[in-house]
């Protein structure tokens, strides 16, 4: 039975050998030699150290193209023209589905005629040496960002390849991303990834792990995102991870975003313990963007502003071309610089917002209720508790395509634009918390002269891309 316990060394080695047999490049991984490679890297490329020592939020974009030379060019541009503090390598979709053969075909095509049919960097196919070439070519630390439910081979190769940070987790890379992956199996796969990161950590190479905070990116109530982050953090710590960056996606209400980032940090520190370095990452708006670069810059501006007030350890930036999909490298760098300008202008102002404490208390209380219910359902075992909670709907993620989550919870914005829960379904929240959410949504309904309705939810999903925060009824309705 799945338990939240460290994978024994022998089992780790057995799984490792097995999964490295899944694709030829897996054979090149040698743990001892990999440790030596990591030790040869300069301090400026030690991801966890750079992130944890930062005095103000570090900026990081998303970026991945199939060819190694192109990826180096792209990251150099983001490092130089974009002044990114931390760099990404975003993995392609075939690799996320463990279809290394298709990824290889895409990489071969890209090498042959320069056409990019892959939407990211197929790190497994590039293998350990390809990864190391990338790590060596850039000055800043680089993180693997992907969306892979079973990321065991990807982790094995990229860790050996010199990457020291790895995004994802068993809930956050399953529930929002896929329909049919079994949650129990995904937890097992991530226990392996985390145990491998733990093995490096024990040898002095602290691999930073970053659960994916935005989840479905669509009006996720902060308490749900925070509960998932803390749970994934606990699972990782069990396997020996000691540097964890908990994530959170901007909802667009300044007070709620600041409160949520503070709650995320304090609950993370509380639940993950003193021997773990807990940092936070703030994702600029992950929902739909306006189909207009000028308006998109407004959304990015609010993201930079929020980061300056909340002061997370890291910010994942968006580009003004977000609406059309993958941005040009120039637009990607522009998003970084717009964010930088706002953060640098505002951070020294020590802006304090009225109402953060009250919202912080509400978010903390609700998050804690969810986390404690998970622990209770598992009789103290967070892995078992997670399965039971998602099965019963005690823990749920709105708009999740996965069969492993009920997906019955529905959010809506209140009259100030804060995300509240419109439909609780079986979510394990107390009547106290529920009443506050209902009252806040009632206030909005009063303002709009309509009942609380499902239409609010739909209107809110599109509101920011339509140029507003709250999906108010339009004149014509």
């Amino acid at each position, binding site marked *: 039975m799945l338990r939240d316990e460290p994978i024994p060394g022998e089992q780790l080695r057995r799984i490792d050998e097995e999964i490295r047999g899944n694709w030829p490049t897996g054979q090149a991984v040698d743990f001892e030699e990999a440790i030596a490679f990591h030790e040869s890297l300069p301090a400026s490329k030690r991801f966890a150290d750079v992130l944890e020592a930062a005095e103000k939020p570090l900026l990081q974009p998303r970026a991945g193209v199939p060819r190694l030379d192109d990826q180096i060019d792209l990251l150099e541009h983001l490092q130089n023209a974009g002044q990114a503090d931390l760099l990404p390598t975003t993995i392609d979709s075939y690799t996320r589905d463990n279809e290394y053969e298709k990824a290889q075909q895409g990489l071969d095509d890209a090498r042959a005629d320069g056409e990019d049919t892959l939407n990211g960097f197929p790190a497994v196919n590039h293998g350990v040496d390809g990864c190391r070439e990338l790590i060596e070519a850039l000055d800043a630390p680089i993180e693997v960002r992907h969306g892979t439910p079973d990321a065991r081979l990807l982790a094995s190769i990229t860790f050996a390849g010199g990457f020291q940070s790895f995004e994802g987790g068993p809930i956050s890379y399953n529930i929002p991303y896929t*329909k049919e992956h079994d949650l129990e199996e995904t937890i097992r796969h991530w226990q392996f990834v985390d145990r491998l990161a733990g093995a490096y950590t024990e040898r002095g190479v602290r691999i930073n792990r970053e659960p994916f905070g935005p989840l*479905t990116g*669509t009006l996720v109530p902060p308490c749900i995102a925070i509960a998932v982050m803390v749970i994934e953090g606990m699972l990782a710590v069990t396997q020996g991870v000691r540097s964890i960056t908990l994530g959170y996606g901007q909802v667009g209400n300044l007070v709620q975003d600041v409160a949520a980032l503070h709650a995320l940090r304090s609950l993370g520190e509380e639940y993950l313990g003193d021997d773990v370095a807990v940092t936070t990452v703030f994702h600029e708006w992950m929902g739909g963007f306006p189909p207009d670069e000028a308006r998109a810059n407004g959304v990015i501006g609010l993201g930079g502003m929020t980061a300056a007030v909340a002061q997370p350890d890291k910010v994942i930036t968006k580009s003004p071309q977000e609406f059309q999909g993958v941005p040009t490298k120039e637009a990607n760098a522009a998003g970084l610089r717009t964010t930088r300008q706002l953060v640098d202008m505002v951070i020294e102002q020590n802006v304090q917002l009225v109402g953060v404490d009250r919202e912080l208390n509400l978010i903390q209380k609700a998050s804690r209720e969810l986390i404690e219910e998970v622990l209770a359902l598992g009789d103290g075992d967070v892995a078992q508790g997670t399965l039971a909670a998602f099965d019963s709907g005690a823990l749920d993620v*709105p*708009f*999740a*395509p996965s*069969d492993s989550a009920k*997906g*019955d919870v*529905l959010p809506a914005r209140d009259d100030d634009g804060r995300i509240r829960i419109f*439909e609780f379904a079986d979510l394990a929240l107390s009547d106290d918390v529920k009443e506050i959410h209902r009252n806040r949504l009632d206030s909005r309904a009063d303002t709009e002269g*309509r*009942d609380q*309705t*499902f*239409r609010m*939810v*739909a209107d809110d*999903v599109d509101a920011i891309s339509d140029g507003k925060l709250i999906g108010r009824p339009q004149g014509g309705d």
Partner: protein
Amino acid sequence: MAKTVILGVIGSDAHVVGITILEQALSAAGFDVVNLGVQTSQEDFITAARDADAEAVLISSLYGHAEQDCQGFRERLDEAGLDIVTYIGGNLAVGQDDFEETRRRFRELGFDRVFDSETDPEDAIAALRQDLQIATTEAERHRVEG
């Protein structure tokens, strides 16, 4: 007795928001809902409709390829002996055609009603009540029309 309706996003479309809201609205309105979720094939819709003895199939599509995904669906339902109400809604064509033209094409494919992406859940519910001959309370009728 509650009527059963089948809900799903057809083809390889992964847009989950609309159908999630619709599921909740239908449940709240007293329907038994079988939500097949995203990336659902024609086979899955037909199997679910038969297994659940459903009275309606509601298909959602937001990625612009609905016409291909729905080719032959009515014929397969007929082959399976399922005389059942079918609706489709969403962004049904790539680019912004005249919606009346889109509606006409999907009516020809055999759908009883065709909705655009701006449709309220309440509109779909009102249509279902009419097509399935379900009585509406005064209060509900007021809300639907509001």
